[in-house]
């Protein structure tokens, strides 16, 4: 039984079609092309992602804050009532102090991250407002309409 060579077979055209399909869909997802296919959607997504990131970093700062408060509760309890440490196998007065130092360092890092995320959100909002890319293949949004509305 002889099979047709790859160059002559229908398989060639199927593979060729799918390779082209993947290349086109991939190109449509690059920022250079996606920002021109639908600028409104593209820049709204940038702002939305940055806003989500800023909220996440703020939550991490709050978690760090509350962890420090909880550690201080443990430390004051350990100072007034030394046998309260007996229940925790890992904890001693010294390890509480060292944990407090490490969590303070984490608190500083989280604050820096949160500030950077807020700066990034501001930058993306300015970028979205300036709308640097001209749309192709679809009409530009009507000027005067609010962001996210009346997109073609």
């Amino acid at each position, binding site marked *: 039984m002889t099979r047709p060579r790859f160059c002559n077979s229908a398989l060639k055209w199927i593979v060729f079609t799918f390779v082209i399909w993947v290349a086109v869909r991939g190109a449509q997802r690059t920022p250079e092309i996606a920002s021109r296919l639908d600028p409104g959607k593209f820049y709204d997504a940038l702002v*939305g992602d940055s*806003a*989500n990131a800023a*909220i996440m970093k*703020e*939550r991490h700062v*709050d*978690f760090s*804050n*509350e*962890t420090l*408060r*909880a*550690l201080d*509760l*443990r430390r004051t*309890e350990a100072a007034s009532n030394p046998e*309260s440490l*007996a*229940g*925790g*196998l*890992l*904890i001693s007065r010294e*390890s*509480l102090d*060292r*944990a407090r130092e*490490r*969590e303070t360092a984490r608190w500083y890092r989280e604050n820096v991250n949160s500030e950077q995320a807020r700066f990034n959100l501001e930058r993306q909002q300015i970028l979205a407002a300036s709308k640097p890319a001209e749309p192709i293949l679809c009409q530009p949004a009507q000027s005067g309409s609010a962001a*996210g509305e009346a997109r073609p």
Partner: protein
Amino acid sequence: MNLPPAKCGIRRTAWFSLAGVFLAALGFVLYFNLWLYPGLGLSGFSRADSNAALGHVALGFARSRGMAMESFDMVKFREVEGGEAYAWGAAVMRPGAADAAALGEKVLVWVYLSFDGFRRSWVRVDAQVLAAPDSEMYFEPGKPGQFERARLALAKIAEEESRRFREVWP
């Protein structure tokens, strides 16, 4: 048609039943953790009702751990315009007599919810006692060792899972 003789011995049947039971249990745990537990009892709270939802979740946590809830130390609601919404806070609780030896007289409990746009409901993301005695924040280089760390992590997961089951079926 030359089929091989059918295999239906008692041993084979036992293995298949065991695998079926295991798969059913695994599926139930996945369904419980990914769908049933996160939104349980929260369908009545709207997107703006984040404080009430937080209170409901914190009370459920307190009840399942045998704690008495006092108040919230901090509560926050944040949302993206036309997108996600998040609520988090720290509740002050008093552990029951059984837990007081390990946890102390007063603890802070972190509660974190997010609004699921698909379910149109708040869902639980995280609830944990802050600075708990088994927390990783007390780990030091080489103390405890790797096996002890793995044991602690597995114990924490098992404890959280059983706490969820106790919260749903007290």
